[in-house]
């Protein structure tokens, strides 16, 4: 289904972001969510907390779905700001320095794939250090110094 993506702050996502628990499941549950109009969800036979793959010109990502409490907004999907939303938004600044975070055309499909945790997502999408996915969890991975 074709939709328009809108991103922005939600109070719950900001709560976990500022609390500093971005690696944990609580942050994933609050930020890796596409809030949809109930009518749109019915069109794809989606239930709350089902998973969708959302695809734009810039990338694709798997998210949970939830009923938007800001409805009605048929044809528009709201995703809280965060590493998941970033993958699909447009970096185009039109020479005005601000990327286009809002109003991005995208397409959504129902899926069974997993929604990744932050550490796994960053490793999978950007793969800077080629780390082993199994070792990445909801806790920081680092080596302690021997004293």
């Amino acid at each position, binding site marked *: 289904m074709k939709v328009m993506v809108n991103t922005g702050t939600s109070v719950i996502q900001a709560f976990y972001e500022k*609390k500093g628990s971005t690696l944990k499941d609580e942050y994933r549950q609050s930020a890796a969510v596409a809030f949809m109009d109930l009518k749109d969800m019915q069109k794809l036979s989606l239930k709350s907390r089902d998973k969708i793959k959302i695809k734009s010109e810039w990338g694709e990502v798997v998210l949970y779905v939830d009923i938007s409490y800001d409805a009605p907004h048929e044809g528009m999907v709201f995703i809280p700001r965060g590493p998941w939303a970033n993958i699909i938004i447009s970096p185009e600044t039109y020479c*005005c320095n601000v*990327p286009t975070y809002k109003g991005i055309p995208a397409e959504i499909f129902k899926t069974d794939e997993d929604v990744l945790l932050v550490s796994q997502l960053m490793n999978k999408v*950007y793969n800077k*250090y080629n780390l082993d996915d199994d070792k990445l969890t909801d806790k920081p991975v*680092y080596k302690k110094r021997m004293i």
Partner: protein
Amino acid sequence: MIEKPITDYDEEVRNCSCSYCGNNCDDITYLLKDKKIVGVRHACRIGASKIINDQDQRLLNPLVRNDEGILEETTWDVALDKTARLLYESDRPVLYGWGETSVEAIKKGIKIAEKTGAVMDNQSTICHGSSIQAFQNVGHPVMTLGEVKNRADVVVYVGTNPMDDHPRHLSRYTTFPEGFFRKNGRKDRTVITLDPKYTNTAKVSDEWIQFNMNEDYLLFDALRMLLKGESLDEEEIAGVPTSQLENLIQIMKNAEYGALFFGLGVSQTLGKQKNVDMLIQLVEDLNRYSKWSMLPMRGFFNVSGFNIALTSETGYPYGVDFSRGYPRFMVGETTTIDLLNRREPDFFMAISADPGVQFPGYTIKHLINIPTIQIDTHWGPYTELADIVLPSTRVGVETEGTAYRMDSIPLFMKKVIDKPENCHSDEWILTQLYERIEILKQEEDN
């Protein structure tokens, strides 16, 4: 579940300034037990979470990536020397962030940028940069939040949802408080929200006007036409019935004191600074009939402070490039996102900011190829991409400093508790870096 009030504390520290959003609420009380914060009074949900904070992901020691790509704890000397050398030897360094640190630290940052020919930029570049451009284009009818509290009878929110991202904005400054000329608080005010979504702010407003995304410019232009007495041939503009717009303009025209707040809904959609241009001109036109002023809803607690500090030091608000030895500012050229999209920088340092949360994926992809440094308090998405991590302290909790509220009022932020042993303030870290860069320069000169 209703949580019981916290009674198990032994010290109360009053009048602290919150370190979350541009509201900079300075009436916060911290509740301490054994020199640790156990509770917060008056703060909103997000502010309290920032002050009390999750300790599981707190950065406590400097970290450097080893050959296997795993971060490893190290000493301050090793981490600082490595950072200073990388920064000194790079051709196109970018120093980004600054929104959540003090003006004192920013000042040190500017000195480093000048010394190393770096680009100095902050979160304006991804949020209200376009608003600042519009202020330079058209002007800015400013106000302070105190004025709004005491005088405003009409408050308009455009493309912003303060109930979610500035939770105390309505209750502390604009809508609910009793003001000198607005004795009955909420009853004396009309609140109107213009937003494509039925946001939490729209839910507490008197009127919600839903308009189509990416049609902001059209909408504001139509409002200006109506204000000037022209009639519209269309029945609907940007998805809003013309009669509703006529009604809105009547309310705005008849206001005794109007305050307009706009957010990223205006500055991040298509049109960008042109949307804000048009909005400013609408406010300008309204001043022929009544007193109107406006403010952008600035996000972080000191994002406005950076613009002020940098303007006073260099003459430009953000995205200042020192690579030619003198400050240069060119929208779309010397700004972080454009630089990264063009794959230009060869060094990237984020100071109290998380590009992993804030930047588009395409932009982040350049950070894979270049050295990345993080100065922050918590492990976040950006730490997963950082080569060197320098743990810092929280301004307003563990370090004192100055920050500017969204209406450009400077506020002092107290130090309340002690910092973790091996963390240092942003100001200390930047001073150390500056000294090390000086030594490297002297070595080269000799």
